[in-house]
């Protein structure tokens, strides 16, 4: 059962390790700082905050 052992070991050790690494990476690169700024990432100059998009229904076509 070497393949299964490898998979189980990987699931128990590697995945939690990867999650911890991702958390550490996020903290060290400032991903959790300035949440107000990060929340604005979907917007830009062409589609800024305050402008609704996709308003197409209710108009005669």
């Amino acid at each position: 059962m070497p393949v299964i052992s490898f998979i189980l070991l990987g699931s128990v050790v590697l995945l939690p390790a990867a999650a911890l690494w991702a958390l550490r990476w996020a903290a060290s690169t400032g991903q959790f700082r300035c949440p107000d700024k990060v929340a604005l990432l979907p917007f830009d100059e062409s589609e800024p905050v305050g402008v609704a998009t996709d308003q197409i229904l209710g108009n005669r076509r």
Partner: protein
Amino acid sequence: MIHPSQTSKNPTLRALLPGDAGAGSGGDGFRKADLAEIDASCRVPVLFFFLSGLAWLIAGSLLALVASIKLHSPGFLAAWEWLVFSNVRTAHLNTVIYGFASQVSVGVSVWLMCRLCRIPLPAPGLVTVANLFYNLGVTVGVGGILLGDSTAIEWLEMPRYATPILFSSYALIAVWTIVTFRLRAERHLYVSQWYLLAAVLWFPWLYGTAQVMLLLEPVRGVVQAAVNWWFAHNVLGLWFTPIGLASIYYFIPKVIGRPIHSYYLSVLGFWSLALFYNWNGMHHLVGGPLPAWMITISIVASVMMLIPVITVAINHHFTMLGHFGKMRHSPTLRFIVFGAVSYTLASLQGIASALRSVSEVTHFTHHTIAHAHLGMYAFFSMVMFGAMYYILPRITQREWPCNGLISLHFWGVALGIVLYVVPMSLMGFIQGTKLNDPTIRFLDVVQFTLPWLQLRTLAGLLMVAGHVAFVANVGWLLVRMFEPYRKPVVRILTGEAETLAAGK
């Protein structure tokens, strides 16, 4: 901008970006691409995923109708042995899960990753090859099921000769996502990217592990059931749910023009989902011959899912507060908000169903089927429909041709799924209570379900009508792609379409 040290070390990766997108801007890294440029770069690969997904949706819907009719009229199409209920029901599940939902979700993920990384789609050939592999895998798999080659393992019914093809496709998508992440021109990650990155890395691991432990080197006895439900439940929670939530967190703010209510809550929702969800699967085996501690831990983790579910619900509700009126004008918002509310309801229903006292009644009844449709259709599929309403006009640079078809789609599927889930949930409870009563004959319980199953077929017809309307509108949109650009009556692209067309 991306950190200079991150890009300068990767000239090979830079070469994957089209045009001059890989050119640094003053040594600070890549330039941020315009949204219209990103949309144009996504056109062919994303269209491939959407169109093939919709083809599977129509096939899956027809299979669902046949299966539903057979439940109350067993003589329907009885002369066709390959359309026996067990084949049709299984083929339906696999076409809609792997053919439709997974493919559309990959298309949406690809577009979202490019937009949030602020780069044109890199390595489009890789994505297209993944799509070809994917469709080949689903075709071989569903064909095998209809020919009687099903493995009889729930959610993994495709024969073992089909699954390596699908796994290759998932692996290619995961590689593409990591490459795109490394090439990003925006240093910070939006919460949608957390969900997408996690989903594309979790799923190949889930799928590969389940394949090895159930098909290639099968484990024995009840462990098979444990692995089966670990996989089947996590497909929902660690593949579809993250992609659905990533879409909701992107599209609600974009459509209403307002950032999400609390970014901290969104991050808390992501990490609590990652922590608790993967323990949930064993609650499907309440009453089964598994060690009690395994099931108990699973029930506890299921209840702990209240944390991500409530944080997501609060965040979505307070973001939408004061903007619900915009649903009248935005097809995207209609579908996405319907899906977001359904996510909360499906999760609460799932948490309740995990409890031993509830599971003893609802297990082995139509309540479980209703719950699966509340999660996979009312939540996930509705969110994907909403996402496609937003993405398709942008990548094709054409407006939706017919508002009437949009309304027919929404009301067909919304009424259809409500008519499906509410009566079936109720009927499941009654059915379970009757099944647990030894004084009631089994045949009487079966006969009690018949009118409810006929209602289910009616609900299915409404959903199929909605799907046909959507596919017709998409087909019409594609026809318009090949016509000369005309200024539309109402523009949803706020200037981008006109600018691009003028430049052609």
